[in-house]
C-alpha cells in the first residue's frame, strides 16, 4: 500500500503512479504547494519585479513541470532570479506557494547539477558554509569570498562601498560565533540525513 500523505488524500490522489514531476516538486516543497491548481493566468509573471531578466516566467515553469520537462525547468535561470518578494504569492488566485516552489527548484537544480550560471548557487553555498561554520552570517567573509570568485573585476568598483562599510563599523572584520556550535552542528547533521532519506 503506498504511503498516503495528508496532502495527497486532500487532493484526491491516492495512487503512487500519480507522482509525476509536478507532484515530486510539490512533495519537496515546504507547506502545501497547491502547484497542481495553477490555471496559467500569469498573475505571477505579471507581478514579478525581475521578470525582465527571467528566461521563463514562473507560470511557464509550472506549465513545463506539467509537461514533465525536467531538464529544461532545472536549467532555467528563473528560480535563481527570484527575490522572494512574495508579490506573486499573495496575488495568486489559486494560492500556489510560488516562492517556496522556487526554493525547491533551486535545490533540485543543485542536486542535479543543472544550473547554467553558478553565481547564485555558489553564493547560497558560501552563505550556508559561513552559517554552518559560525552559526551567524559573516558578511565580510561572504562578500570577499563571493566577489573574488565571481566578480573579481568588480571588486575595485565595490571598493568605495566596502571601504565605507568597514570604516563606519557596519561590516565586522572578524566573524561572530555562537556558543553552542556543536548543538547546531548536530541538528544540521541530523537534518541532512533526514533530507537524504525523504
Amino acid at each position, binding site marked *: 500500500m503506498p504511503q498516503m500523505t495528508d496532502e495527497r488524500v486532500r487532493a484526491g490522489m491516492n495512487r503512487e503512479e500519480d507522482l509525476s514531476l509536478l507532484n515530486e516538486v510539490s512533495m519537496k516543497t515546504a507547506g502545501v504547494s497547491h502547484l497542481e491548481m495553477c490555471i496559467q493566468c500569469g498573475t505571477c509573471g505579471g*507581478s514579478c519585479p525581475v521578470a525582465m531578466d527571467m528566461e521563463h*516566467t514562473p507560470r511557464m515553469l509550472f506549465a513545463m513541470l506539467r509537461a514533465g520537462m525536467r531538464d529544461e525547468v532545472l536549467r532555467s535561470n528563473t528560480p535563481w532570479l527570484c527575490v522572494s518578494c512574495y508579490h506573486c504569492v499573495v*496575488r495568486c*488566485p489559486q494560492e500556489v506557494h510560488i516562492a517556496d516552489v522556487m526554493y525547491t527548484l533551486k535545490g533540485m537544480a543543485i542536486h542535479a547539477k543543472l544550473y547554467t550560471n553558478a553565481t547564485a548557487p555558489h553564493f547560497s553555498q558560501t552563505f550556508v558554509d559561513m552559517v554552518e561554520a559560525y552559526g551567524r552570517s559573516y558578511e565580510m567573509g561572504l562578500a570577499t569570498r563571493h566577489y573574488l570568485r565571481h566578480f573579481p573585476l568588480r571588486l575595485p568598483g565595490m571598493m568605495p562601498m566596502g571601504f565605507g562599510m568597514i570604516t563606519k563599523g557596519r561590516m565586522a572584520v572578524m566573524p561572530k560565533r555562537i556558543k553552542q556550535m556543536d548543538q547546531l552542528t548536530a541538528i544540521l547533521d541530523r537534518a541532512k540525513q533526514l533530507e537524504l532519506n525523504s
Partner: protein
Amino acid sequence: MSDTRSNPVDKRSSPVEKKIERVGVYVCHCGSNIAGTVDVVDVAKWAGEKLKHQGVVVAREYKFMCSSLGQELIQKDIKELGLTRVVVAACSPHLHEKTFRTAAKNAGLNPYLVELASIREQVSWVHSDKTVATAKAKAVVAGAVSRVIENRPLDEIKVPINPNTLVVGGGIAGIQSALEIANAGFHVYLVEREPSIGGHMAQFDKTFPTLDCSACILTPRMVEAGTHPNITLLTWSDVVNVSGYVGNFHVTIKKKARFVNEELCTGCGICQEKCPKKVIDEVYEAGLGYRKAVYTPFAQAVPNFPVMDKENCTYFIKGTCKACEKFCPTGAIDFKQEDQLINVDVGNIVLATGYDLFDARRVSNYGYGRLPNVFTSLEFERLSNAAGPTSGNIVLRDGKTTPKNVGIIHCVGSRDKNFNNYCSVICCMQGLKFAHLVHERTGATVYNFYIDMRTAYKAYDEFYQRVLEEGTLFVRGKVAEVTNAARRESEKGKLIIQVEDTLAGKQRRIPVDMVILSSGLQPRYDAKEVGKMFGISCSTDGWFTEKHPKLDPVATMTEGIYIVGCAQGPKDIPSSVAQGAAASARVLDKILQKEVTLEPIKASVDHEKCSGCKVCNGMCPFNAIAFIEDDKVSDINPALCQGCGTCVAACPAGAISGTGFSDAQIIAQIDGLLLRNLEPA
C-alpha cells in the same frame, strides 16, 4: 459471542412481542450495472436463507426492478403472498424510492413499508472486486430487512394551499415572476427594498449581446407590474418575519416611512426640484452622481412617488427647512409618517433578492479608491448611460477629459481564492460590451485583459467576434497591478497596467488613461440572515442553495420557497428572466393542486415520558417545539416540524420519537448491517 458484545445501550427498541412480518426481498440487476459487480443471484438466495427467520418469505432477482414488469412482480407477491414489508435492493432511494412506494400503494400496501437498499451507487459502482462487493451488498440488504420490519405505516399529510404569493425583490427576475403569476389570475405581493423596482438592470445603458437599450426593454415591464390589478406593490419595504410552511406562510412586511402620502402624491417632482440638500447617490448612480434628500431614484421609477431620506434631510437633522412641504401642490409631504407593519398570508414565496457588486477596493493592487481613474463596472454603466451623471460621455474622473487608452480588467474578485472562488458569469460579456461602447463613443484604444474568454451562450461568441473586428486588443493574462509609479517618460501621468501576456510569455507594462474593473457579483451582504428568515441555506460562497443543481434549479430544500435570478448564483438577464418564469410555473402548479402533500417524517413528544426539562426547546430552528406551561411538558407542532430528528436524539428521557427514522429503525439497521440478525448457523 461474548457478553460485552451484547447490547448495553438498547434503551429504546421495543421489547414488546412482535408479530413476524412477511418480508419480500427484490434484488435488481440493473442490466449489468449491478449484476456486473455483484452476484445478484447469490445475494437473493442468501437473503432467502439467512434472513428467513427474520420473516423473509420470498427473495427474487430481476433484470430491471423499476420496469413495469418488475413492479408488477412485487405487486403480485404483495397480493398473493400477503407481504407486509418490501425491500428493494437496487439504486439510491433518491432515484426510485417513490416508484416502488407508489407500486406498493397500488397493491394495497402502505407505501412507507417499502425500503430501498442502495447496492448500485454504494456498492457495484464504487467497488471492483466481485467477492467484496457481493459481501457488502448482502450486509446492505440485511440492514434494510432489519429496518423495514421496524417501519410503521404512515399517512401522507395533506394541507391546503393559500393561492397568494410573495415575491421578494423587484429586479427583472422578481418582476418576471410576479407578472407570470399575476397574469395567471393569482394575487402577488411584490416587495422591494429600494424606492423603485427595476433593480440593477435599471442602471445599465445597453445590454449584451444585442446592445438594446436596457431602459427601453425594462420600463414597460416595470409599469406593467406597477399597474397590474393582481399585484400589490410594496416598495421601500422589508420582509421582517416569516413563519409557517408551504401553503401557509405568514409574512410580516415593514413598510418604511416615505414621508410622502402616496394617496395625495402625483409624482410631479417639484419636491425634488426644491429640496436644497444634495446627496451622493451610492445606490442607483453607484456613487458617481447626486440625488436630493427627497428623491425618486430615476425618472421612470415605479412607483413614481418619492421617498425622503431621513438621514440626510435638513428638516430631520436641524428641525427647519420643509422646502418640499412648502412647494408640494397637493400637500402630500407628511413628516409624521411612521413605519408600518403589514401582515400577509401566502402559500408560496419567490426570493429574487439579487446580488451586490464585489467591492473592488479589496483588490488593492488594482488601486480602486486610490487611483482616481480606476472605475468599477457599475460606475462605467452610469458613465456610459445617457441618463447618467455625464449624459453618456465617457470621461475621466475630472469630468471632462476623454480617455485615449482604456484597459478593461476581467475577473476582478472572481475566480480568485483570495476573494470569491466562483466565476461571476457575466464579466466577460460585460467587458466586451464596455470595449464596444468605449470604442464607439471615444475612439480610444481598448485593451481587454482576461484569463479565459467565456462567451458560451446564443449569439455571445458572435459578439466577441464583432469586438475583435472593431480592433479591441486582447491580452491573455490576469492583471498583476495597476500603478501610477512610472518607470520611464512614456509612462508618466498614466495608469500603468502590469501584466504577463501569457501568450507572448512576457511581462508587459501598458500605460492607459482609464481602467475599468469588471467586478464580480457576490451574494447580498445580508443573504445569510435572509436565508435564515426564510429557512433556506446558503452555499459556501453565500448564494442560496437550490434543491438540485440540474433538475430542480429554482426550488429549495424548503418546500414552497423558490429562488430566482442572481440570488441563486451569478447570471445574466436572459437566465434571470427564465428562472423568474420557471419559478412561477412551479408556484402555479402548487396553487392549482389546491393542496400539498407533506412527507410524514415528524417528531412527536410522549407526554407521559416528558420530564419538562426543555432541552429540546432550544434545539429546533423552526420553532416547532413549545413548552406547555400548564402540563409542564414540551409539545411539537407537526405543521412546523421539518423532521430533522435533532430533538429526538437530544431528549434525555427518550420521550421524543420520530416517524420514518425512529430509534428502533436505525438500531435495527445498525444490527442488520453488522450481520447480527442472521439465522444462527
